[in-house]
Each structure stands twice: as structure tokens, then as C-alpha cells.
């Protein structure tokens, strides 16, 4: 089974701190994604990456950046955390290529910014 591992399940940070959320997948997937999940708003795409060192903005990139130095690792960075970034963050990966493929999600990282 494909595994997508998010290193931190729960984090508590202070306003203005720099926050790193790490995601690692073990199936050599090309594509990786960061979503944010909020009640009543569903899953909203922050950033995604189709290859190492490549990134594209999703629907809500403001206040976030990403890094993909290795194929298996995709990091979400909050340069200066704010209280409105308190949320559940979900990482997902996708194999890419032809055919109908699905997203495999990590268990999520719940971030609280005080």
C-alpha cells in the first residue's frame, strides 16, 4: 500500500513563528499536493508539485510556500504563522501518467496558531 506520512499530527505555534509541515510518500509518486481542511469549506488546494523543484499555486496559496527538493518529500512552509492559519493540513500524492489514478492522503497535521 502507498503510504503518505505526515511527520506531525498536532502542532501548536505562536503568531509570527515559521512553521514547517513535512510530508513523505514511499511509492515514487510524481505528484504531491497540500490541502487545507476547514469545517464547512471542505478541502482547499494550497500548492501542488508535479516534479522535483517544481511547484504550482492552488486556490489559496497566500501565506504559504512549499519545497520539493526530493521526489518523496513535499514540505509546506508558513513563513509567519497567523491565527487564521489554524487548520487541518492534508498532504496527498498521485502517481501521474495515463489512466485513472487516485489521491492517497496522509493522516493530517492539525495546526493551532495562538
Amino acid at each position, binding site marked *: 500500500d502507498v503510504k503518505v506520512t505526515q511527520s506531525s499530527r498536532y502542532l501548536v505555534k505562536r503568531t509570527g513563528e515559521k512553521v514547517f509541515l513535512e510530508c513523505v510518500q514511499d511509492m515514487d509518486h510524481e505528484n504531491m*499536493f497540500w490541502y487545507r481542511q476547514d469545517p464547512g469549506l*471542505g478541502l*482547499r488546494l494550497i500548492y*501542488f508539485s508535479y516534479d522535483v523543484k517544481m511547484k504550482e499555486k*492552488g486556490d489559496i496559496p497566500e501565506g504559504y510556500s512549499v519545497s520539493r527538493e526530493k521526489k518523496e518529500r513535499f514540505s509546506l512552509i508558513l513563513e509567519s504563522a497567523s491565527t487564521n492559519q489554524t487548520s487541518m493540513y*492534508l498532504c496527498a500524492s498521485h502517481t501521474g501518467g495515463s489512466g*485513472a489514478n487516485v489521491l492517497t492522503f496522509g493522516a493530517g497535521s492539525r495546526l493551532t496558531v495562538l
Partner: protein
Amino acid sequence: QQPVQSPQAVILREGEDAVINCSSSKALYSVHWYRQKHGEAPVFLMILLKGGEQKGHEKISASFNEKKQQSSLYLTASQLSYSGTYFCGTEVGSGNTGKLIFGQGTTLQVKP
């Protein structure tokens, strides 16, 4: 841009049926359905492709009306294990990018 799901919440008794709808304003390449149980990651249920091909889950079915840009998920003879939040994810363009735009979710609660 997000697809719209309806209803927002459903409460059922075991054995009852439910339908969850997903409607998009954009032409769709595919529609995916995922279920998320409390505290867990969303899990893939079903994918419907433009052109009518359907893949998915044994006891849950779905339809995809390309012209109306709508999909419906059918849960028949619901079980307690069906409880959770259901999300539709829509893929636009030429497809197979994996880039899904999700609806706001439908919370399903099945009671004994």
C-alpha cells in the same frame, strides 16, 4: 470554483438509502468520491470518468452526467460503517493531473 455538494448533512437508520449530489460550474474530466471518518485520512471510494467509465466500490454506486456537470453517489442499505464525511473531487481540463477541487463535504450519520 468549488463544486457544490448537497445535502450538507444526512442522518439515516441502518438499512436506509441516501443520495449525495455534487454539482460543478465547469466542464469535468472526472469526478472522484472520498470518504473521511473522524480523525482519519480521506479514503478513495469511486471515480467516474468522462465517457462513462466507472470504477469503484462494491456496495456504493455513482453516476456522472457530463452535460450537466453533476455526479451523484448512491448508498443503499446503509451500514453503521458508512458514517463519515463524503467529499466529491472534480478534475477539469484534459485530466489525469490528479489536481482535484473538492466540495465542502456531506456528513453522513448512520444510526442503529
